[in-house]
């Protein structure tokens, strides 16, 4: 044998886990309430997936990024709130621009972009205020070819049902306010490109219009609820209802405290973060199910053992595997945190936290819930009940 296996913990531990359940309850309640309050007061740092907006990754053509200079240049463009952060290394930055509203300023911006990209003779003006209409004026007569080419320069796509007719150099495009807001995303991207394009390379651009953002938010919330519900129902069917409720409480605990982590660290809450949330819910229940499985087995074997003792016994019996399974995932996720790059950073940090908190909640939340849900009330022996009360 090359080397001997190492037991992660010595066999037959006898920790009184559930004796500490009041303390755990206090700790978890505090963390969760703080998470909830934090999320409500400070809000989550929603990424553009949910908020809508623009994210551009730029790299300085020479030297490092000057964030302050960049911030003041872009802040003066009239495209709303712009936030910047270094991304990965000192010559790369992530620029985030808020969701565009489709206001008059946007049309003025479109005018600037049009003049720069299609020529000084062009101009763009808003139509009547009660519509989202936009009016394009060409330097000379409009024909369908130069018109199409020109509007594509300001990011308008395929509006050919509204081609100008007859001998004119003015074309009006009918738009609702909502449609104009979607288009203004394009205008803002062009404006940023025009403004800083000579000093920076554009490595990647992402734009999410107001409509999609709202939809993704909606389906994200449904996804979380559906996942938690489906898993709880599965556990309920495989075990008993108390186990299902215990699992649900443990998952809610993990999800909520992960949200708290996002608030605390101001991490970007994007679609990948949502994926992390769902994965944490699914994964944290792994350990829980392993403990539950043993509890169920021991309930059959030790018909007269009190619930707290039985739970403690089961947790101790499965402790090694709980720590091992979490350990393997922990080291894998650690590699993601360290080497996975900036795009996956929020996701990896959340997962790392999820692995830890999921292990904790399997023991102190899921199992403690079984005590409070009186999984085996009558079978507590009198002596056990007394010592219970004495402790309390």
């Amino acid at each position, binding site marked *: 044998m090359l080397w001997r296996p190492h037991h992660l913990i010595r066999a037959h531990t006898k920790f009184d886990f559930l004796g500490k359940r009041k303390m755990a309850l206090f700790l978890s309640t505090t963390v969760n309430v703080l998470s909830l309050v934090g999320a409500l007061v400070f809000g989550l740092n929603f990424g553009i997936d949910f908020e809508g907006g623009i994210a551009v990754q730029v790299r300085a053509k020479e030297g490092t990024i000057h964030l302050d200079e960049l911030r003041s240049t872009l802040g003066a463009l009239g495209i709303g709130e712009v936030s910047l952060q270094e991304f990965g290394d000192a010559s790369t930055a992530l620029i985030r621009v808020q969701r565009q509203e489709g206001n008059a300023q946007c049309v003025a911006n479109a005018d600037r972009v049009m003049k720069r990209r299609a020529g000084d003779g062009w101009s763009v003006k808003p139509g009547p205020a009660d519509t989202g209409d936009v009016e394009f004026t060409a330097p000379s007569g409009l024909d369908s070819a130069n018109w199409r080419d020109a509007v594509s320069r300001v990011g308008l796509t395929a509006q*050919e049902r509204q081609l100008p007719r007859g001998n004119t150099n003015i074309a009006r495009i009918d738009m609702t306010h909502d449609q104009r807001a979607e288009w203004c995303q394009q205008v803002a991207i062009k404006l940023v490109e025009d403004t800083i394009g000579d000093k920076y390379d554009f490595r990647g651009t992402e734009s999410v219009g107001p409509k999609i953002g709202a939809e993704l938010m909606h389906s994200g919330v449904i996804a979380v609820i559906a996942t938690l519900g489906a898993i709880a129902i*599965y556990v309920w069917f495989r075990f008993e209802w108390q186990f299902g409720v215990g699992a649900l409480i443990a998952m809610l605990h993990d999800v909520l405290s992960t949200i708290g982590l996002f608030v605390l660290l101001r991490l970007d809450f994007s679609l990948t973060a949502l994926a992390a949330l769902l994965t944490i819910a699914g994964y944290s229940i792994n350990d829980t199910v*392993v403990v539950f499985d*043993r509890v169920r087995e021991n309930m059959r074997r030790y018909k007269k053992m009190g619930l707290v003792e039985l739970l403690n016994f089961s947790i101790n019996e499965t402790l090694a595997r709980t720590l091992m399974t979490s350990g393997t995932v922990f080291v894998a996720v650690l590699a993601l945190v360290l080497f996975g790059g900036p795009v996956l950073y929020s996701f990896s940090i959340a997962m790392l936290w999820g692995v830890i908190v999921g292990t904790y909640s399997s023991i102190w939340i899921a199992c403690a819930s079984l005590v409070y849900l009186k999984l085996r009330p009558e079978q507590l022996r009198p002596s056990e009940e007394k010592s219970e009360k004495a402790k309390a």
Partner: protein
Amino acid sequence: MLNLQRWQTIAVITFTALAVLFALPNVLPASLLDHLPGWYQQSRINLGLDLRGGAHFLLEADLRSVLNERLTNLSDSVRAELRKQQVGFKDVTVDNGRAVVVTLRDEAQRAKALEAIHTVDPSLAVSGSGDAIQLAYSDQDLFRRKKEVIDQSIEILRRRVDETGTIEPTIVREGDDRILLQMPGIKDTTDLKRKINQTAKLTFHLVNEDIVSAGSSAPATLPPTTSLVPTREGMQQLRATNPKAWDDIQKADPKLSPEQICRRFQPQCLPVFKRVVVGGEDLDDAKATFENQQSGGRPIISFTFNAAGGRAFCAATRANIGKRLAIQLDNEIISAPVVQSAICGGSGIITGSFTTQQTQEQALLLRSGALPATLSIIQESTVGADLGADAIHSGTVAALVGTALVILFMLAVYGPLFGGFASLAMIVNMLLVFAGMSILGASLTLPGIAGLVLTVGMSVDSNVLIYERVREEKENGRSPFSALATGYERALTAVIDSNLTALIAGVLLFGFGSGPIRGFATSLTLGLLTHLFTATIFTRMLLSAWVRWRRPTELPI
């Protein structure tokens, strides 16, 4: 029982070998791959746009204004028909997005009015009472029309963005009114948007019959009003008989004019007047249909102009009965039907000896002038190739480091034998995931790589559950063989229960997620499914073989 039955062993080995076989093309060097059969070369995982670089657009079609336009046209026709049938009406208005409302002057004429409306379009849903009649399109009709608009838009987009046929864009319908457009390797989206906006140029010209009747189809000199344009049939013949000429035409820079093509390569050509009778932007719709039974029921193409187009077309056809009208799309004549009569109602038909397939093709070509609905970009994402390369690099490093750490951990805790078997099973599992993704043609995204790394960590978990159970059974004084057998048997429910919960999360994530997140859900779900096989049956096979070989008195776990 620990031992697998013979068929189980054979199944495990075959399955594993197949996994290796199908995963292999992903890592083989291109030089070697070239010598292998094509189907095998294609068994590779596609990289998602976030890894290979490219542009992704989500376009939304403005179906509401299409419907309104259609209702407006309907109100025009109804008004005209009521007048023709001498039904008095106060007003015909369009209730935006819903219906056309007719208000009659005299309630008594309601039956007559309904009859008139029936001749306009028998499929309309008619409601209302007294002097008010509401006309709406049926749900089926609206649904069909929506689908038509989107399908047609997709077809047109494909023609526009992939003229050369080399970019392999993904253009698919998403939901009710959206189109997903993905172009790998594209970075300049301004150019792409210009292409999307570029319509095929559809025009109607009269054929200069004087030159045709003079004999030669390509005379040396032409009057300045006339030019030569190749027919589509002629070009296709040329492509079949003289591929080199076809190639030269496609590659020519600057592009050859139609007349130059006719002169140089002599495909079938027609002399047409340069003056445009009607432009494609005035064509509202064209569809493949059939003549009525009395006339023979042949496949025909029917088309509709807007008001301006209708007037121009009426005047031109009235003056040129018996002559041919050439329909030119870009630089080819797709059809040159003979004008049978003046076509003045704004709509007409093209007859000829067509097959159904031909009429469908021709109708599609006619429609490919203009997009049927305004498309706006509601989501866009562009990833430069170097950003994608960075992502691939960091993803690969994270995956390798993660795998190494997990293997070290397993070896340290369960020793070289058990730890080694679990690690081997995990590696086979990753091969299975790669094979599965290759076969499914799934895309690997950056979140997908994160899913793979998670799978690495989670797939040894089932072995942990089994091994810990084996340790327990060993401590209970069981013999090595019995400890292994009982360990595998008793750990199974925990293994399945704990993985199914994670699978539930994975499947729901796939259902609700989009884009890169789907990639994450795919690799995670696939990994969890396949590892149920590797962690249980595969390691069991290894261990039972080892037990039979060494007949150990004590388990090194």
